[in-house]
């Protein structure tokens, strides 16, 4: 009978566990502070966004965003551990709690925001759009000439859906070949398995730079969709998603205010601009309101840089990608990057 009793106890405990377990607001933030680092999901190798360098350190704007969050939460940008994920693995990794933030060139869409147990905090790391990379030998000048083409796509992306929409809308036929990783797609484009490779335009430049002879390939002029790429977190902790959102806005506000990694410490001590004083914690309690330290923005900018610095370091003219700011310039410089004020 003892055995039966213990079985019953297990059943009761199981029922209790099954019925409880509701997470409270702040639980994720507490858990992160307790373990002492942020587990950040990045891509499986996309130059400019997240790719391991020669020493194995992950470089790129997506990786730097996670470092900025770590700088805000811990005051130390190195307290990040990275998980490299392919497009198919990314959401499950976040849903299951394996990673804390997914910063992996992921398109913000309504269904991903609403039905998957995930939430896009609202900061867009990079405004992108789907384009086509074609072998210049084909002599194609426009995506409209792609009737009957074979197209390499990365599996499980919004690109798969957008390409289908575009070809249906323009009454063109195509054959999709889908691969798990961008490297496999690129290899198949080079071998001629597909006529064109399609992906977010930023990725096309990145992938072209990895091909054996990048000069033989052209990016077609069309951009066929809106792809706002940004970080994602799991639902259930609004404190944490608010922090992630405001780390993004802090990066933009710092650039707008002219605060850079070089002058941030001096500015924090001696600024006369009330806007900058609030941003850098010299005035007000804006950091503690977010459950962060007062100097959170100082730490972010000092250790990682502002948005403009991040962009130039990873994607800009000084890099092999040579991507212009375009839509990703600040709102007062012709772009659409706009952050609400810190006050």
């Amino acid at each position, binding site marked *: 009978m003892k055995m039966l009793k213990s079985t019953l106890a297990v059943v009761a405990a199981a029922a209790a566990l099954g019925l409880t377990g509701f*997470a409270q607001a702040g639980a994720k933030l507490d858990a992160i502070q307790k373990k002492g680092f942020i587990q950040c999901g990045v891509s499986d190798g996309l130059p400019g966004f997240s790719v391991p360098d020669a020493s194995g350190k992950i470089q790129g704007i997506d990786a730097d965003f996670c470092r900025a969050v770590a700088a805000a939460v811990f005051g130390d940008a190195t307290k990040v551990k990275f998980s490299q994920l392919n497009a198919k693995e990314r959401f499950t990794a976040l849903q299951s709690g394996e990673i804390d933030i997914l910063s992996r060139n992921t398109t913000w869409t309504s269904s991903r925001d609403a039905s998957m147990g995930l939430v896009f905090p609202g900061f867009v790391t990079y405004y992108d759009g789907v384009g086509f990379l074609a072998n210049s030998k084909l002599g194609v000048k426009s995506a409209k000439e792609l009737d009957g083409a074979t197209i390499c796509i990365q599996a499980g992306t919004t690109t*798969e859906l957008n390409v289908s929409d575009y070809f249906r809308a323009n009454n063109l036929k195509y*054959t999709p070949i889908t691969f*798990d990783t961008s490297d496999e797609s690129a290899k198949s484009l080079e071998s001629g398995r597909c006529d064109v490779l399609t992906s977010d335009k930023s990725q096309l430049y990145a992938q072209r730079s990895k091909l054996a002879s990048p000069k033989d390939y052209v990016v077609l002029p069309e951009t066929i969709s809106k792809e706002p790429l940004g970080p994602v977190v799991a639902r*259930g902790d609004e404190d944490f998603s608010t922090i992630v959102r405001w780390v993004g806005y802090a990066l933009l506000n710092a650039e707008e205010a002219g605060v850079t990694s070089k002058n941030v410490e001096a500015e924090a001590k001696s600024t006369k601009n009330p806007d900058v004083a609030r941003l850098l914690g010299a005035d007000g309690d804006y950091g503690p309101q977010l459950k962060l330290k007062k100097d959170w923005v100082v730490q972010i900018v000092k250790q990682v840089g502002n948005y403009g610095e991040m962009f130039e370091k990873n994607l800009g003219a000084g890099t092999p990608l040579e991507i212009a700011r375009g839509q990703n310039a600040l709102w007062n410089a012709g772009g659409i990057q706009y952050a609400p004020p810190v006050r």
Partner: protein
Amino acid sequence: MQNQISAPKQRLSLSDPKVRAWLFQIITVVAVVAMGWYLFDNTQTNLQHRGITSGFGFLENSAGFGIAQHLIPFTESDTYARVFLIGLLNTLLVTFIGVILATLLGFIVGVARLSNNWIINKLATVYVEVFRNIPPLLQILFWYFAVFLTLPGPRAAHGFLGSFFVSSRGLNMPAAIATDAAWPFVISVVLAIVAIVFMTRWANKRFEATGVPFHKFWAGLALFLVIPALCALIFGAPVHWEVPELKGFNFVGGWVLIPELLALTLALTVYTAAFIAEIVRSGIKSVSHGQTEAARSLGLRPGPTLRKVIIPQALRVIIPPLTSQYLNLAKNSSLAAGIGYPEMVSLFAGTVLNQTGQAIEVIAITMSVYLAISISISLLMNWYNKRIALIER
């Protein structure tokens, strides 16, 4: 009277082994059910709490993406349920072709390993040792990237007879388009098969009664060729051939075997055949040499000895391990995700999972499908095994 021992009362006692056995059974059932219920309930609660939509309603939604190979008609506006069906059919296609080819190749190599011809024997040994010892995923990647994708593009395709084209886009071949005479032709083929069945029965009966052999194979082949040919002469050609043509980027018209399918089938066939060859060899070896000597002393030639004496006895040893090789092949087909062949895992547990985010439902469906495929193969092979088992008299 006082000393008479009263009959023991039928009471439930833990010292009764029967009662104990039942009790343990009940406890086990309760524990398993409780565990299952706990997992289910906990998952439901967590999904609900995290705001993850659950249920199978998503299968009704429109998929909105294209698929490279579909055996049934498909457009982007079809549902996820149809995508599932296409993935399933693509998996079954690879499994079916793979099992047949691997069995044929495996039998040939297995027999070749026992050959007295030194070169054939050694070639078969090298084949088995090489392909058995390389992981199947590597073989798939090899066939795909190193063999099929290095073929020239469609504009420089190798053509054969002006209607078969081999390129990095796969094997393009003429498609058979049914004409009005297709139905009579199908009926004539069915008639031919029925005729062959009757002829075989008659020949077997006569053989058992009189011992006079009959050339069943040649007679069957003749029936199979003559009846449909007559039909085609009377009603006209049952199909017309649509030859692929190079138009724009690719070949238009005709049938195409995509390189992903070719690479996957070839790799799985070659890999599994190496194991089957060893199984066949061990099966044949298990039949004692005395059987061969007995058959020879009865005057049977080597061919009939192998077919009528050795193989039937060897099959008893061969079939059970062969079943597990078939199961392996079916399951290994999921490695296709590495080369983008649209089967269950790549298409349904990959793309659909990612587009819908319904991880638990999609994985549950996918696992059930593999379970169903494997159990079907097992049942079929067990049935066959029973049929050929030695009936001891």
